[in-house]
């Protein structure tokens, strides 16, 4: 059954950052220079082709964009400046918006105005909510212990609640990702055993970013890893040791040591990324979608306010600390609440998943290949 | 080695000879049995030439001209056609198989066709075996 080409898709993808894809004349250079491109996952050329022709369904089920880490080789080598690397990036954005069932992500990516508005709104609500809550349970002058403006126990609960909500949203999106790439394809019959056997891939790629490491340029990977680990550390600290983190004023090295490292990591990498994007130092920094800026600014903001309120607390300036804390939360909530399920940060889940699914796909294809050979042999005999 | 026929080919300068050259430039192989003599037009081929070839011991004679209507001299090939018809009858009366004398149209763009014609004729004549005349010639030499 023939697939309908759709010339509009390429116009839509422009909003996601793929502005040059129409220049591509398919010399195949990019796929050949790409260190990751190999049968059966040939990219970026093939994805670019699907995009040029607007084969939406094909693209939806296509995991290739997640297998690309944007080392920029392809873009550097492209004879027509069609920016394959950036196209893959844009496709990741687009896929994120496709996985997201709420449609919010789509809104965000297509208009940075909406995204920032949403962020500001959530921030305002958070601010208001926490202010009311804080003033009802304690006083602005108290940072810790009884009568604290933000009692850690309560924040802890809130964090968990938010955590569950986000996890829920993300899970649904992941499920959709599975459906697009594997579930709906009748040709892909994957035994449960395979799912179990390959499951290790998830944590492995999540923690090591191993594939990213295989890029010819190592620096981006290193930076990304630091960022990722710092973020994780912070997450763990907050989700499990918040009471310790918040306690003070004396420094509790068991937790705070980690806190400092993480913060340093976050601030450092964010700063580096911002600098890179402003100066366009690397190929993968040449083109910046609005969502990239928003994300970096948020991250920097959150890490910054986080450490500031901590310091203020140690300095005994409780009121100031509390206010900064409030400001911090006004960053944290929108960042987690909006970026994780609906924007850039979803890739934190999608990338390892993609590795997992692609492995399964490949296995299934090989199996099918063997089967067809088998039947061919039998027919021959 | 088996019998390798010796064929004399009269090719008109404008179509057939050019065609034969084309076979060369496009490297289309054919049997080395043929020896080409260039004439301006197939109409120049005097029947006596053909007979002369046969009497000199040729196993076959091939005359090639432009396709009807394409003659560089407008209708020379038609004249060749008529002459060959008569000649064939004469040859038969001499007791020589008429397959040994052949007229073909080969245009300047038909290198392949020329090669095919030569190969085909060689095959046919190989089946016919050497021309009787050769034996006679041999006998003559023996007498002297």
């Amino acid at each position: 059954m023939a697939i309908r080409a759709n010339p509009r898709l390429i116009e839509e993808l422009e909003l996601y950052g793929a502005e040059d894809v129409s220049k591509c004349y398919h010399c195949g250079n990019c796929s050949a220079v790409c260190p990751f491109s190999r049968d059966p996952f040939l990219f970026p050329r093939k994805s670019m082709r699907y995009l040029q022709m607007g084969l939406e369904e094909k693209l939806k089920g296509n995991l290739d964009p997640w297998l690309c880490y944007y080392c920029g080789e392809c873009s550097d080598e492209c004879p027509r400046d069609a920016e394959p690397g950036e196209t893959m990036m844009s496709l990741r954005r687009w896929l994120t918006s496709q996985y997201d069932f709420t449609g919010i992500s789509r809104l965000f990516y297509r208009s940075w105005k909406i995204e920032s508005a949403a962020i500001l709104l959530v921030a305002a609500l958070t601010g208001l909510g926490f202010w009311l809550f804080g003033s009802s349970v304690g006083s602005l002058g108290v940072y810790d212990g009884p009568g604290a403006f933000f009692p850690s126990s309560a924040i802890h609960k809130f964090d968990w609640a938010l955590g569950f909500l986000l996890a829920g949203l993300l899970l649904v999106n992941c499920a959709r990702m599975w459906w697009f790439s594997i579930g709906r394809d009748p040709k892909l019959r994957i035994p449960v055993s395979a799912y179990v056997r390959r499951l290790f891939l998830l944590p492995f790629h999540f923690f090591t970013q191993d594939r990213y490491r295989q890029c010819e340029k190592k620096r981006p990977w290193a930076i990304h890893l630091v960022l990722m680990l710092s973020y994780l550390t912070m997450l763990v600290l907050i989700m499990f040791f918040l009471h310790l983190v918040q306690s003070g004023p004396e420094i509790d090295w068991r937790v705070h040591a980690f806190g400092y490292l993480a913060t340093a990591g976050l601030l450092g990498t964010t700063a580096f990324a911002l600098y890179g994007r402003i100066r366009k130092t690397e190929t993968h920094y040449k083109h910046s979608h609005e969502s990239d800026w928003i994300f970096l600014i948020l991250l920097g903001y959150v890490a910054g306010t986080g450490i500031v309120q901590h310091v203020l607390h140690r300095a005994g300036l409780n009121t100031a600390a509390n206010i900064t804390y409030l400001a911090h939360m006004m960053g944290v909530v929108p960042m987690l609440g909006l970026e994780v399920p609906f924007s850039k940060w979803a890739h934190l889940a999608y990338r390892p998943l993609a590795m997992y699914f692609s492995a399964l796909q490949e296995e299934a294809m090989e199996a099918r290949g063997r089967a067809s050979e088998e039947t061919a042999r039998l027919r021959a005999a | 080695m088996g019998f390798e026929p010796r064929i004399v080919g009269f090719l008109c300068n404008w179509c057939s000879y050019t065609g034969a050259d084309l076979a060369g430039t496009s490297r289309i192989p054919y049997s080395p049995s043929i020896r080409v003599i260039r004439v301006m037009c197939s109409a120049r081929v005097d029947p006596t030439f053909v007979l002369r070839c046969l009497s000199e011991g040729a196993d076959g004679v091939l005359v090639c001209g432009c396709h009807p209507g394409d003659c560089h001299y407008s209708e020379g090939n038609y004249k060749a056609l008529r002459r060959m018809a008569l000649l064939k009858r004469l040859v038969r009366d001499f007791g020589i198989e008429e397959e040994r004398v052949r007229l073909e149209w080969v245009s300047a763009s038909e290198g392949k066709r020329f090669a095919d014609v030569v190969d085909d004729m060689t095959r046919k004549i190989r089946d016919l075996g050497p021309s009787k005349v050769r034996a006679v010639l041999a006998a003559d030499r023996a007498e002297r």
Partner: protein
Amino acid sequence: MGGNGKIGVFFCLEGTDTPPELNLEEVARYARNLESVVRVEVMGTRPRLDPETLAPDLKRAGIETVVVAGDSPGHFKQAFVRALALNGANPEEVRLASFREHGTVPGKLTERAKAIVACAVRDVPFGLAAVPKPVPVHPVTVVIGGGIAGIQASLEIADAGQKVILVEKSGTIGGHMAMFDKTFPTLDCAACILTPKMVAVAQHSMIDLMTYSEVQEIAGSSGAFRVKILKKARYVDPDACVACHACRDVCPISIPSEFDSGITTRKAIYMPFPQAVPNSYLIDAESCTYILSDGKKCGACLTKCAKDGIHLDEKDTVVEVEAGNIVVATGYDIFDASRIERYGYGTLPNVLTALEFERLTNASGPTGGTIVLKSKKYNKRKKAEEWVFDAEGPRPKSVVIIHCVGSRDARYNPYCSRVCCMYSLKFAHLVREKLPDAACYEFYIDMRAFGKGYEDFFERIKHEQVFVVRGRSAKVTEKDGGMVVKGEDILNDRLMELPVDMVILSVGLQPVADVESLARMFGIARDRDGWLTEMDYNLDPTATERGGIFLAGVCQGPKDIPDTVAQASAVAARILRSILSGKGQGSRADLTLEEIDARSRELAAR
């Protein structure tokens, strides 16, 4: 001529060919004062025009005739045509004022742009209005460049009984074509069809051949040029030399041979190639020990020459000649493959450029035409191992031909070099013919087999079991001794990693290194790819804005041999016509705005 009602002039730039020194505002101001122009608008670069919105706009202004002006206004014509049609006006009344087409005059672009707009407003074809006055023409023609283009042009003119001075930079005429083995698609050997022409040039009474010479300066004006030619010292008297090779055998210096594109060596005293014309030795002063040491060292050849034809004290001389017409046939350079590192040219021994392979497979090449891999040989003089072609060397088992090397590529040459596809197919054929058991792959993007008999040739190659792979291969890497070529086989949707012994890079053509200075010397503009610009892409592919200076062959843009020959003959026609009629073509570049303006008024009045 036609054209009534109110006229609107719209400036739309395509942006690709806009020269910086063009002052658009000034041109626009000029346009406002032209008769019956009611509206002038500068729409900027690549404006997004929508007929639906243009139409009412034009209607309101009552515009029934539109002049679209710009570097390449045709790009925007349709929008206006449809707009007029929507208004029920006559859609034929959209006129183009193309600066690219008519305005390529270094220095005076703005003036020219005004003239072009004026002509368009008056609906007078620029070609008719801008006609330079005929000039008396000196019968001698100087042809610069002794490649097939120069040779053809010279012969055509000389056969008509007119004097030609053929100036060639190197020691022999023949150019690139002389280096080729066979020519596509007929596969007849290049030497066989070229050498007779070279001989004819040498023997022609009306051609005086100046090899190893360069044009230094062109003074005077169209019809009466004074050309300064530097005759570099050959140090060997061509009349005395009988090519006995005695001198060569004793010369101690050996350097890479230009003619064999570096895959063999030649001596400091050398004959470019056996069929060289003039068929005589010459000495390259840069490498001759004797000359470098001002006669203190060596001089071995002096004693060996039986006819005392060697004069190492010979000096360069400058001659000045009068000429009515000049033919520029300076040809091209090939793209420097080492610029693309990932193909490993220069580092991997068996990665060859097309020209190197051309020599390798040539009967008169180092291996007598057998295709072999380079093998390590110990060089006694250099006391070092080096890679050389040896007729007995190993034959390649698999050969890869990579198309579009340096062509169709934004980072190198954005244009298509036009000949590579066909010569690559030719190579494939030669490989299959000479090495029947060697696999041959072609990595291509589009197979551009457009000429007479080309397509058939392509089909034929396919039947000779050549693997044509659609996809430009990306890199050549060394892998345990051998090489691996990586590329995408797009049509079969797979990645190929071929182990190969020989890689041939189908390098493109590019303007000669000194094209910049040449262009300045001739006073001709260059297009954005660096090729010399013709007077009119369609109507006048051979003439230039400078009257009396003509372009032949690849110096105007990539061409294959038939097109080059046709163009060279075309130039001859132009020159013969000027000589026979005694009316030389004046220089269009010298026309002033006033002249063109006046003439166009005249014509419009009729």
